[in-house]
């Protein structure tokens, strides 16, 4: 060893590849002429090899390699490229809000956009009402209860005849834009409240179970008739007629239910089937009687 020998820290740094090229060159030239430093380097290399061989698994796990770093960076880049649109928008908005002038401009643009959309929406509603007389006919819009407007609509939006106890109708063409807008608001509110179900409960019950031969046509006919009759029975029938109708309907429904149970228990019971079909026919006749009365009244009006 001489006064030019390097310290153990520098030698260790050299072995770890952390010294500068100049230091590494000087150390290499010195070691080639200095036996003490050569032994010191050899000893340090042995210690390093022992330590690395002992802690190889831990070091491989804990210290990320360059390939691992590249994989991590690739994954981050991929995630960034596939990030949702709203996240990007939020990021841009966050960056934009940092600038006051951009923020002010965005506020103005948004306000103008909302105002334009609001005006456009109102115009479209008015146009729809005025230009589609088949969707709201004068007889469909009947003011009742002191000025409220009632328009019967189905779930799919098609107009139905309104309640017939109304005495007055609305002439759409004579309404102002504001009144038409109010009318449209009323229609929307009522159509969301009134949902006229096209399929009756009886039909649904029957549809759950399997139909008997020929039963389906009865059930469908009854469903169609009932849907029609339900909309007019309150107005067509007198109270006494209505009581009789409901009583007879209850009798027929009870008969259908009981006979269906019997047929379900014993499908080979032809008598039960005959009575069941007879009851279905009674129900059809009953529903037809309401339609017949309504037809006669209408012909004499």
């Amino acid at each position, binding site marked *: 060893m001489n006064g030019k020998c390097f310290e153990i820290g520098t030698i260790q740094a050299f072995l770890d590849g952390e010294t500068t090229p100049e230091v590494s060159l000087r150390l290499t030239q010195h070691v080639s002429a200095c036996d003490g430093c050569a032994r010191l380097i050899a000893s340090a290399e042995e210690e390093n090899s022992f330590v690395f061989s002992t802690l190889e698994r831990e070091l491989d796990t804990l210290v990320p390699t360059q390939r691992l770093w590249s994989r991590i960076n690739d994954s981050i880049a991929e995630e960034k490229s596939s990030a949702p649109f709203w996240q990007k928008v939020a990021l841009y908005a966050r960056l934009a809000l940092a600038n006051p002038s951009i923020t002010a401009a965005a506020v103005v643009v948004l306000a103008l956009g909302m105002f334009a959309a*609001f005006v456009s929406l109102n115009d479209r509603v008015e146009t729809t009402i005025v230009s589609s007389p088949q969707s709201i006919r004068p007889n469909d819009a009947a003011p009742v209860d002191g000025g409220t407007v009632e328009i019967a609509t189905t779930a799919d939006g098609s107009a139905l005849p309104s309640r017939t106890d109304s005495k007055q109708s609305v002439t759409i063409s004579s309404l102002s834009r504001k009144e038409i807008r109010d009318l449209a608001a009323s229609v929307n509110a009522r159509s969301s409240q009134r949902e006229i179900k096209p399929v009756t409960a009886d039909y649904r019950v029957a549809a759950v179970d399997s139909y008997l031969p020929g039963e389906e046509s009865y059930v469908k006919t009854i469903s169609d008739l009932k849907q029609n009759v339900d909309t007019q029975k309150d107005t067509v029938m007198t109270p006494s007629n209505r009581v009789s109708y409901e009583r007879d309907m209850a009798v027929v429904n009870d008969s259908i239910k*009981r006979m269906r149970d019997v047929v379900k228990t014993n499908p080979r019971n032809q008598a039960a089937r005959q009575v069941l079909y*007879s009851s279905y026919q009674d129900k059809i006749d009953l529903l037809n009687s309401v339609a017949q009365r309504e037809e006669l009244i209408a012909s004499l009006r």
Partner: protein
Amino acid sequence: MFVPSKNLICLLLFLCLAGGLAADAVGQEKAPPKAPKSREIVPGPGAEPPPFVREDGVTSERSMSVDPNVAVKLCVSEGTLKINGWNRDEVRVFVKNGRKFGMKALEKSADTGKVNWLWVAHSPVGPPGPASECLAGDSIEIDAPIGTSFDLSGRAARTTVDSIKKIKVKIVEGVIMLRNITGGINAYTSQGDVMVENSGGAIALESTTGNIVAIEVSPGQIGDLLRAKTNSGAITLQKVEHRQIEASSISGSLLFDGKFLNGGIYNFRTSNGSIRLAIPAASSCTFKATYGFGSFNSEIPLKILTENDSPRARTVVATLGDGGAAVSVTTSSGSIAIRKTDAKP
């Protein structure tokens, strides 16, 4: 420090603007609809007929010479209607305390030159329409030739018809009484009884809530059908000579008192009402009774052909005599009974 506060002010401005617009929109949606300025009054459909306006209130009478087999068409809005056949080729209409009316000849016979299609109607002053053409009054009497065919419709009218050839009547409310109609009947009333006596031809009787009674009726020709249908009322068929009968009631009872003719087809049906068949003991028919929760009994011994042994919904097929007529009786919860009468088959 200045930049964040500026951003905050901008955000507050934006929120205020957006909130104001939203409140305006919500307020417009929830605002109650105003009553339309322009309204036109239209008559709405209803169960009750529109009130009869006795704008005339006069008693009047008109007559017209017609063909013996004239067809008369008329509508009655309100009143008691009586139609009588007579042996004169003339139609006379009398309205007491009612509307003024007119008689319009729609067609004349090519052979006799007389009116064979007549329309009796009110001469409306207001807007035209079927209702405004109807006769109305305290009582309406019509005399017509025995060979007259009537086509009658009405709202609230108690109708009595006697001794004409044929009638078709449809009224909303009121009793229909028909007698001595030889050429066929088609009668419907939504609310009221239908009674037919001593008549012939194809007969169709229908009521929604009323009873149906047919006594001493017979077919005009082979194949004429007697059909009686009511929902809540009872049906009584007595001394009926039709070979084809269909009678049905939902909650009313059904009574057949007569004979089953050889080759006839008889169908009786109720849902909840009882069915009574009063027939001679020496009748000849094949009897098929189907009942769900009801019962079946007979005073006349029957020869049982088939009978299904089921606790619910039974069918009994039996014969009486030679089994000439086919009788089908169906009820859901009513009872079926055969009673013996003293009449000769």
